[in-house]
């Protein structure tokens, strides 16, 4: 890690309803690389991402993004967020959706073509979003974030329901973005995607169990598959908490 982290989270507690769902998270996300946020459904991944984007009311702790408190006005054009369920206008065409978000971020029209192309939807650019498949819709949603050319891209389960070829293509796209200096925080509940990440945040029940690289995780646990390694880590943490 060089320089200051893109995202710096200190002792973050979040309460939703009566339950505390994040219990004192301390995490630093390095700049210009892909960080994977992994863990089972309901472990707090989405809540943590909402904290980074600044849409979540937090109980205590600090979330600093690019040197400013999360959700600051200055960050709104620098941080892109793609929610798990596609949030686009289903009655507009792919191109109009992306063009609208381009206008919100003050981006020129060639950025629109570029973003639509980046998610492989050029062929469908003039189709209504409502006529697309679920996976395609997710990619429209992604294009609406890419068009802003953000410095930080927060993606909540971007590859769910995509065919394997497309998944590989998207991860290549994420790699290219990271190489160009973009910081990506990508959540997933499938461990085989962890391989693409420079750094992994392993979450369970509102705790971050570890922040490691895939290589370190294998080394620490002595497991060859990341799935088994994560399992190993969970078991180890249980033993720790019971003592």
């Amino acid at each position, binding site marked *: 890690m060089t320089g200051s982290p893109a995202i710096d989270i200190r002792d973050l507690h979040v*309460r*939703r*309803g009566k339950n505390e769902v994040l219990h004192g998270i301390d995490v630093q996300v390095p700049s210009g690389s892909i960080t994977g946020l992994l863990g089972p459904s309901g472990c707090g991944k989405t809540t943590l991402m909402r904290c980074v*984007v*600044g*849409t*979540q*009311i937090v109980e205590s702790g600090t979330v600093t993004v690019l040197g400013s408190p999360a*959700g600051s*006005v200055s960050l*709104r*054009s620098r*941080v892109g*967020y793609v*929610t798990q*369920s*596609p*949030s*686009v*206008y*289903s*009655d*507009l065409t792919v191109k*109009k959706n992306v063009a*609208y*978000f381009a*206008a*919100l*971020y*003050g981006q020129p029209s060639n950025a629109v073509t570029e973003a639509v192309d980046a998610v492989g939807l050029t062929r469908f650019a003039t189709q*209504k979003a409502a006529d697309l498949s679920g996976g395609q819709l997710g990619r429209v949603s992604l294009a*609406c974030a890419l068009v*802003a050319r953000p410095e930080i891209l927060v993606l909540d389960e971007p590859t769910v329901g995509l065919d394997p070829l497309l998944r590989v293509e998207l991860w290549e796209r994420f790699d290219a973005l990271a190489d160009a200096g973009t910081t990506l925080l990508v959540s997933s509940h499938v461990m085989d995607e962890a391989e693409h990440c420079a750094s992994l945040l392993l979450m369970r029940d509102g705790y971050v169990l570890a922040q490691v690289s895939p290589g370190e995780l294998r080394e620490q646990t002595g497991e060859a598959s990341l799935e088994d390694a994560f399992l190993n880590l969970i078991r180890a943490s249980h033993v720790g908490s019971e003592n």
Partner: protein
Amino acid sequence: MNVTIFAATAGRILAQLRTDHRTVAMILVVPSLLMVLLYFLYQNVPAPPGQLSLFERVAITMLGILPFVVMFLVTSIAMQRERTSGTLERLLTTPMGKLDLLGGYAAAFSTAAAAQAALACVVSFGFLGLTTEGSVTWVLLIAVLNAILGVALGLLCSAFARTEFQAVQFMPVVVVPQLFLCGLLVPRDQLPTWLEWISNVLPLSYAVEALQQVATHPGATGLMWRDLAVVAAFALLALSLGAATLRRRTP
């Protein structure tokens, strides 16, 4: 406010509206058809001597009320959709200001309302023999102002609805009492005092009074200007309250 974002938003909402041909047709044509229905409804009712005929009194009022009702409904549903589809939360993470969004809605739907009111005026004044002492331009202006009021109240009410079903239910709550108390059914000075007080704090009362001023006076009267100012103030108040209900951070 950011002009580019505001204009892009108004354009986006109009583009969404355009894709829905049936809604466009209904927004444009239904009020005109209702005016025709009113015309035949009162065809055989004799006019009281020296007064406006019943058709004229009701029709001029309806030209102002219909845009209000239609735009209230359209807006509260559209905004509700924006909430449930997650696009609202997404928009609030972008550089967009809350007033850019609300202003965009107000501009887009009042454009639609202007087209609607223009058509209804052409039908009423051109074919149904409706006449006013004042200029038709005033009628149009008041109709558009009422539409903006409808948009503003629709935006505000949608904040208190979790589903589209609930959003629709706000119509009898917000619109019907105003319809009863605005002076159309019973002249406001003949209402029991306590109802007159309520009528005095409802914006539609002022809109209807302004229309009656246009109907019976050749020039713009001071009372009409005051009424228009009151309606505009109500719309602004509702828009600001609506902005206050938009939260960038949620639990």
